[in-house]
């Protein structure tokens, strides 16, 4: 079920320096014209579609996810395909519907709760943390909560402070939650599928500005069983002089920074801490930093 790419590849002409256990290296297909392009929006939509089709207990709940086709069109077409019982439009009551989602997860279902932006998740943050994240611990394993809270996080285009906060650090600091922040379409697709299949509560932080961006995807990514492992960092670009770590939209800037450095003769490695902002990425980052002799530049938070 896990589609883990373990191929040794040459990335932009720099030979791969050997693979460490647990770090995934992506094949750069920038120069391959036969690779299909997919936007992050389509990647998320296809992931939701496939998971709902495979498991009848998966349902989507949120504001405007049904008839409006999704505030950002992520859930486009799903109401027509699966019906109003599985794609549920809610009133503007985050605390209420987040609690209802967690209750449904307590019972037997696998909800995907959409927050129009994560700024509104603060209205429901009690349910995310006290009702979802802590339940498995407090019941010593009796009550698990296989729920996904997803939505755009971080900066958008001039929407003001109340609509631009990044919640990665907030949720990443909570034990019991798994926090994911994908960058490319492949990440978005693989991680959302993994998040829906995961038995623990997952906070899935997307970025509104990334929705329209296209990335190349291979045939393996398009397969309906494609799934990425949760808990590993990813090397977007290999290098040997300095390591830059980032998550979500900042990975794009990190890659641009690496290009600029390359012109000055410095080979930068870009490690993407897309998985679990807080935990495992630390190990992988340290491993990556060791390879570039401890020179590390973290690009924290989204722009």
């Amino acid at each position, binding site marked *: 079920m896990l589609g883990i790419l373990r191929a040794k590849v040459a990335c932009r002409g720099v030979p791969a320096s050997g693979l460490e256990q647990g770090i995934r290296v992506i094949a750069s297909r920038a120069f391959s014209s036969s690779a299909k392009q997919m936007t992050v929006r389509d990647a998320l939509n296809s992931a939701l579609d496939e998971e709902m089709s495979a498991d009848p207990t998966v349902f989507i709940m949120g504001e405007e996810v049904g008839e409006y086709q999704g505030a950002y069109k992520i859930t486009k077409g799903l109401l027509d395909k699966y019906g109003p019982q599985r794609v549920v439009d809610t009133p503007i009551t985050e605390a209420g*519907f987040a609690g209802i989602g967690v209750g*449904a997860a307590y019972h037997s279902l696998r909800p995907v709760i959409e927050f129009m932006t994560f700024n509104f998740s603060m209205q429901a943050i009690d349910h995310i943390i006290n009702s979802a994240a802590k339940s498995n611990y407090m019941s010593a394993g009796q009550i698990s909560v296989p729920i996904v809270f997803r939505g755009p996080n971080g900066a958008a285009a001039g929407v003001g402070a109340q609509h631009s906060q990044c919640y990665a650090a907030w949720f990443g600091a909570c034990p019991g939650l798994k926090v994911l922040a994908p960058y490319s379409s492949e990440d978005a697709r693989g991680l959302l599928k993994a998040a829906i299949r995961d038995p623990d509560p997952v906070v899935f932080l997307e970025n509104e500005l990334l929705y329209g961006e296209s990335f190349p995807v291979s045939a393996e990514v398009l397969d309906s069983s494609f799934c990425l492992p949760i808990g590993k960092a990813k090397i977007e670009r290999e290098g040997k002089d300095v390591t830059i770590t980032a998550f979500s939209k900042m990975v794009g800037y990190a890659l641009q920074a690496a290009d600029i450095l390359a012109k000055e003769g410095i080979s930068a490695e870009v490690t993407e801490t897309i998985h679990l902002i807080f935990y495992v990425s630390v190990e992988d980052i340290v491993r990556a930093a060791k390879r570039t002799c401890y020179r590390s530049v973290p690009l924290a938070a989204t722009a």
Partner: protein
Amino acid sequence: MGRKDGCSKGKGGSMHFYKKEGGFYGGHGIVGAQVPLGIGLAFAQKYSKDENVTFAMYGDGAANQGQLFEALNMAALWDLPAILVCENNHYGMGTAEWRAAKSPAYYKRGDYVPGLKVDGMDALAVKQACKFAKEHALKNGPIILEMDTYRYHGHSMSDPGSTYRTRDEISGIRQERDPIERIRKLILAHDLATEKELKDTEKEIRKEVDEAIAKAKESPLPDPSDLFTNVYVKGFGVESFGADRKELRAVLP
């Protein structure tokens, strides 16, 4: 009691026990949060076509919570089989209901959701009300039951219970409306059992409870390594360090 042999293996805290296979999803630590959760359970029951209902219990203190009305609105919109039970003992911790609620008629607060007021000190009335509510909820959607009851002791171990009400009030209710006394009188009046039989039953039950307490006290406290278990269902062996990051404390399973 926080012991290892408890249903939450000592990790639930003093008020948290669960039994999922019995349909008991536990007491929630955040006042009012259990109502949306209960309505979520009802959502899952309707989704799975279970023909079952959910009883979401809360007190008069929680009855003013906003999330309760948010979830109730959705339950009514989607006709969920949810029964909201307000156990009105007239005091939210130390605050009397007339100081907390503009409208203490909690069964009417549902507005578009029907409500019933039940004498919570009469066990048979409660039974009939629950039966009616279940039939109603399965056919027509949510209903509110307000159980008029009373709390003799304080809110918690540290509350004497007499700083916000008179002792006469407490003893008065105990004399006039005590639920167990009422059942006892009914049983004796209808000759269903003799005084002695009832006394024997009481002795037996007290003995059972005492034994259970003794057994619970014998149970050990959980192992310190249990601090790190059950954080996730499917963990990744994350390492947890001590204060200076040199001492590896545990690996989260």
